[in-house]
């Protein structure tokens, strides 16, 4: 199958018009010695039915159908209202480019403006951008932004920040002379604020922590921000499970200067890790150093309200090597889904979803803790994830769970050698009470053996 719309007659007419007889003549500027003298070695073209069969066959090699999963760790299963899939698949949203021509892109631009507003309301910040690639690159962009704002080079990162986010921060900063130091966690599962207070100094640009953190525990953002501010460092709060913002006090009200994170939970299916949706919000005074696209309100020549991409002098296409970021294409369609998701859930729906996560995860944690051979590792209050510590290697338990069609938690030992036999479990509103009870029962069975 190809997607060409020219008939042979059309081609002939066009070649005649150009004054040549074959298409090959259009490629004379490509030197002979680099021209490919054979056809590409790729599989023969498939018709649409064959293609669907082929891809379905590959998709079915994923053995996730019928499994009960308790995995989270930065990628969450939440209910996606039907209107999200229905509306977001409209060609008018799927098939335009970035809204460079505002007169014919008001739909996309207004959605961005609404998204920016929703993110500000959730995070308690003044301004938000039109998305970044994902939570990890968002955290890295926040570090670079803090470095530009403070002109300081030391970054303190919570060890309770998602391990992959920490890796991305390292990659982004490796050529820019920044130093990254980690802050340990204590038995509550929160970061060691005493250690933070010791390690921080006037050379520190930012303190980066995640809440709920990688262990699912709600960090004390206010205390962390106060410590940061005392040394004129910025407090960066990362949120990888934003459903939590339905009930948690917004980080902006707890002293955070930059709030960034992952909004996959707002209407993006798991999709093996992408596309997801990075977001970022900050205080108005940092606008000039804020990365990414931003939509702003204005009016047209008739005085009618409208929206445009604005403040683009911060961006690469104008400032080139001095831009705040090189980001260009972002995650617009994911932003659209998130906007639809949040507006559909609304004020009460998001709060209800958040409380269900809180209560269900708590119920699961309580029940599992009653099983012999396993206990909750940390004492801090968690949102929808919690760490379990087992009396034997996690890999053994994981494979026993798999036999019972359960995908257990995330193995923590590979990122935290100190957390031997520990795994991170996630429970959301998608889990019914019987799912949780089943997990408890099977764990009990496994651990009795």
């Amino acid at each position, binding site marked *: 199958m190809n997607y060409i719309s020219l008939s042979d007659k059309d081609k002939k007419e066009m070649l005649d018009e150009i004054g040549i007889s074959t298409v090959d003549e259009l490629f004379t500027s490509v030197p002979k010695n680099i021209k490919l003298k054979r056809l590409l070695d790729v599989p023969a073209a498939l018709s649409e039915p064959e293609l669907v069969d082929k891809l379905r066959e590959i998709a079915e090699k994923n053995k996730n159908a019928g499994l009960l999963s308790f995995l989270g760790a930065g990628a969450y299963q939440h209910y996606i209202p039907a209107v999200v899939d229905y509306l977001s698949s409209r060609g008018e949203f799927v098939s335009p480019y970035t809204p*460079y021509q505002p007169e014919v892109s008001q739909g996309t631009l207004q959605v961005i403006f609404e998204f920016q507003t929703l993110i500000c309301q959730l995070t308690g910040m003044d301004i938000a951008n039109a998305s970044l690639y994902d939570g990890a690159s968002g955290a890295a962009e926040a570090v670079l932004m803090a470095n530009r704002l403070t002109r300081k080079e030391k970054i303190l990162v919570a060890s309770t920040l998602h391990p992959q986010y920490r890796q991305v921060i390292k990659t982004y900063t490796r050529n820019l002379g920044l130093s990254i130091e980690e802050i340990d966690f204590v038995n509550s599962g929160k970061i060691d604020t005493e250690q933070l207070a010791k390690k921080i100094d006037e050379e520190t640009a930012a303190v980066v922590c995640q809440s709920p953190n990688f262990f699912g525990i709600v960090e004390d953002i206010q205390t962390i921000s106060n410590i940061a501010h005392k040394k004129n460092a910025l407090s960066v709060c990362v949120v990888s499970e934003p459903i939590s913002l339905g009930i948690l006090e917004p980080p902006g009200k707890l002293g955070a200067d930059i709030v960034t994170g992952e909004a996959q939970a707002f209407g993006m299916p798991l999709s093996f890790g992408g596309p997801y949706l990075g977001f970022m919000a900050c205080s108005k005074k940092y606008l000039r150093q804020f990365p990414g696209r931003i939509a702003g309100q204005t009016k047209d020549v008739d005085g009618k309200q409208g929206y445009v991409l604005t403040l683009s002098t911060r961006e690469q296409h104008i400032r080139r090597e001095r831009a705040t970021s090189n980001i260009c294409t*972002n995650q617009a369609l994911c932003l659209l889904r998130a906007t639809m998701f949040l507006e559909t859930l609304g004020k009460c729906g998001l709060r209800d979803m958040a409380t269900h996560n809180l209560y269900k995860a708590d119920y699961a944690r309580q029940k599992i803790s009653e099983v012999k051979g396993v206990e909750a590792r940390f004492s801090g209050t968690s949102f929808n994830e919690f760490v379990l510590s087992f009396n034997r290697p996690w890999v053994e338990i994981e494979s026993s769970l798999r036999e019972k069609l359960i995908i257990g938690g995330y193995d923590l030992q590979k990122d935290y050698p100190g957390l031997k036999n520990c795994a991170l479990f996630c429970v959301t509103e998608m889990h019914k009470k019987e799912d949780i009870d089943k997990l408890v029962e099977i764990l009990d069975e496994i651990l009795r053996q």
Partner: protein
Amino acid sequence: MMIREPLIFDISGTEKKAFSMPELDVPERKDLLKDIPSREEIEDFPQISEIEIVRHFTRLSKTNYCIDEGFYPLGSCTMKYNPKVNEKVAALDGFTSSHPYAALDVNQGNLEVLKTTEKLLQEITGMDAFTLQPSAGAQGESVGMMLIRACLEDRGDPRKIVLIPDSAHGTNPSSAHICGYQVQEVKSNESGTIDVDDLVKMLSEEVAAVMITNPNTLGVFENDIKRIADIVHAKGGFVYMDGANMNALLGICRPGDMGADVIHLNLHKTFSTPHGGGGPGSGPVGVKKKLEPYLPVPLIEQNEGIYSFNYERPKSIGRVRAFYGNFLVVVKALAYILSLGAEGLKEVSEIAVLNANYIRKKLEGIYHLKYSTPALHECVFSDKFQKKYGVQNLDIAKRLIDLNIHPPTMSFPLIVHGALMIEPTETESKRDLDMFINAMQQIAEEAREDPKILKSAPHKSYVRRLDETYAARNPILRWQPTQE
């Protein structure tokens, strides 16, 4: 005239809802909320019914112009048709419901998608290895430059300078800068290609890489590319090739055969995945053997039919994002390649180039062509002929909107003042091409006869010309409750 669709916040009521949760089936422990800083409510968050949501977004969607509606010759953006079957296969439950941390045996299909796509891209580009992790072209660029830097550091000296032609896209200098390099601009000669003499003068042991877009942003093939690569390599530098314009080269020639050491592709351009109003994209990076050790972790390996991740890569630059890239975008690109086959891929570039040259021929003389060098998949005109009537490229662009055609690219290349960069792509019918040509001819005539109609265009759009100065001087970046 259409009535402006209000912001959701302005039509939000109280106690309305479009969604409700099931009854809670576990104990409600309100006391937990006391242990954490919790909020009473999300102030001013929308409350609205389902039909209102549906109408809100349906109405908003109608104010967008899109490729499904009509011709979209946005130069350098490759706005080709997005095949619908690709959406269908990317929505298969086996893909969408797979968790990135599930065990490898649960995710073999996903790894097969990634590995198969890598191999196909290797063959298409002549590169030795790929990473599909970068989320978009710009992230791909910075990964590419990081790889070069890591390899040079390994050799003992990262060097200081990256050379970039003055015709390049703005992300190039920005990406080089992120990797700690100073950018120096190489001049274009009068045929619009890199001035090799100028390049030779600038080359030194300090130059880490030359970033080249080929065909360049004028659509012109850099026919000295092999020689340039040889000269750069002789000085120990690398050649980075920006593959944004790969749509001109499929099955014709391969970056790997021209001397490129590292390239990035845009799956959302050449490989037909939709732009979504600005993403998600995908920016795979391909490298030659010498740069392979530095690729981001993890790499995908295949042994006896079993796929696995390899994290044991001591020289790797690390990760640039969480998980494995914009996976569903990769699924769509794979579907596209599989549906075309070798002949279909070659035909893509042939017809893309034919369409661009047809437009160029028809509009030559009516619009000014700064560079007469033969071009491939796009043509860059300017507003020079129309300027004498006081008409600029922006006016021409806005008038096209009235004629139901999306404007071309105007913001670059910087070496053409008043640029109109037109890239028709291969999927357009002759009827649509002729409609565009007629529209451009009509506009040229209007510029002579009635320039006012252009200066005040668009007339028929949902909103008319918007005041960007006002937006930048008085930034209103979110809805506020006080706003009336």
